[in-house]
């Protein structure tokens, strides 16, 4: 992850402590002071190994320390939820439906499976959505609920959180 913090004594240690607090393992810390930078901020890249589902907690702890997270790498979206949508998915612009989630910036559709028995019949699709936090996931699902209502689609939500 790429972090941005105040360039003052103790800040880096304060940013690293939460990682071990959530059971993470620091693999590398890269920080470079750019010559031209006078904004009093320090950019740090940390490569780490985190136990599953602890990222939210870490994000919260880092934010409490006043550390700004610029980017979280490959595994940045950790909450997954799979929903099923039934209806005239193509006629109601499936790519728009997906884009409503992707354009939020806090959630994205990561998988899509479709079944279309016949042109005039309703099709069924399974969408997997990923987000960084649970709250973001709730917001994404809320968007899907309103899109479903608007496009007369049947949205089937999972009963429980699935990893």
């Amino acid at each position, binding site marked *: 992850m790429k972090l941005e913090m105040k360039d003052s004594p103790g800040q880096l240690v304060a940013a690293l402590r939460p990682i071990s607090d959530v059971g993470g393992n620091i693999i590398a810390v890269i920080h470079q002071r750019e010559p031209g930078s006078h904004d009093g901020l320090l950019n740090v890249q940390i490569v780490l190994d985190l136990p599953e589902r602890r990222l939210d907690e870490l994000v919260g702890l880092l934010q409490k320390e006043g550390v700004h997270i610029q980017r979280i790498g490959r595994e940045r979206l950790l909450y997954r939820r799979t929903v099923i949508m039934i209806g005239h998915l193509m006629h109601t612009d499936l790519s728009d439906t997906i884009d409503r989630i992707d354009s939020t910036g806090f959630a994205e559709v990561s998988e899509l499976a479709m079944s279309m028995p016949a042109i005039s019949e309703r099709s069924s*699709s399974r969408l997997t959505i990923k987000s960084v936090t649970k709250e973001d996931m709730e917001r994404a699902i809320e968007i899907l609920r309103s899109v479903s209502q608007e496009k007369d689609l049947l949205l*089937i*939500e999972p*009963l429980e959180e699935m990893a």
Partner: protein
Amino acid sequence: MKIAVIGLGSVGRGVLETLAGKNIGLSVTGIADSKSGYIDPSGIDIKKVLMQKKKTGRCGDAGVTAMDVVREADYDILVEVSPTNATDGEPALSYMKTAIKRKKHVVTSNKGPIALAYKELKALAKKKGVALRHEATVAGAVPVFHTVEQGLAGNDIRAVFGVLNGTCNYILTRMAEEGLTYEQALLEAREMGYAEADPTYDVKGIDAAIKLVILANTIWGNGVTLDDVDRTGIDRLTPEAIRLAEEGDCTIRLIAEADKSSGLLRVSPRIIRKNHPLVVEGSLNAISIETDLAKEITLIGKGAGSIETASAIIGDLLFIAERYGRRP
């Protein structure tokens, strides 16, 4: 103790057959169906009445109405098992109120009045010092209210999840097992006698929502109504959707959900793990209760059927007999 039975449909007959076949210390002093009534303070010969009902379609005298039996018969407990009316609960609601005002206990399987007027009926019963029990209104034979009120006494019930409609569960099971379309599975459910000619009440989730309202009112006393339930039925489901769920080791079931803290009341088809305790087969019902002490408890059983529903009624009757009466 003495009981009067109003309603001789499947449930009423189940109750009477059970009483005739088992010596459980209850005598019947009044019986009524929609067309006739019969009162005998010295105890009715149940087998004779059942036979007469079978032959003539009437259990008693056409000059005696159900309300006459409720008002005049000499009984301790009214067993109200007449057909349900989800709109205004009548005439059963009036029978229950009249009996309670006479300081008679009431046991019922009738969902309409309990969903519409539970708070009022409960308050009236409390004032008159009698019991109102309705185990049979939700999930047939499954003793959910005994579990919640007695077995889990002292627990804070946080949420309830249930598969409360056997017709929907049968349809969804068959769609999953055989890849049937919704229409094919509904047709099959009708042939098996699980679905009514007009399936709206079941497949639109109304029946499950009414049961959810009864659960929430009984457990939390929150006075919610059918309008408070966010409801989606199963009639727009496709076999393809179920197959897509199955690819992830899941299936789709109609789940009724009530949450205490958020106040959420919802009936909707949901994606659910195949090995989740609520995933039951065929027309079975299942209820999961989440509490602070016991954590999670799941009950599974027959949600309908004459004798199965009678089991819940008999359980209520004997509960009242033990708590209030002297067993003869």
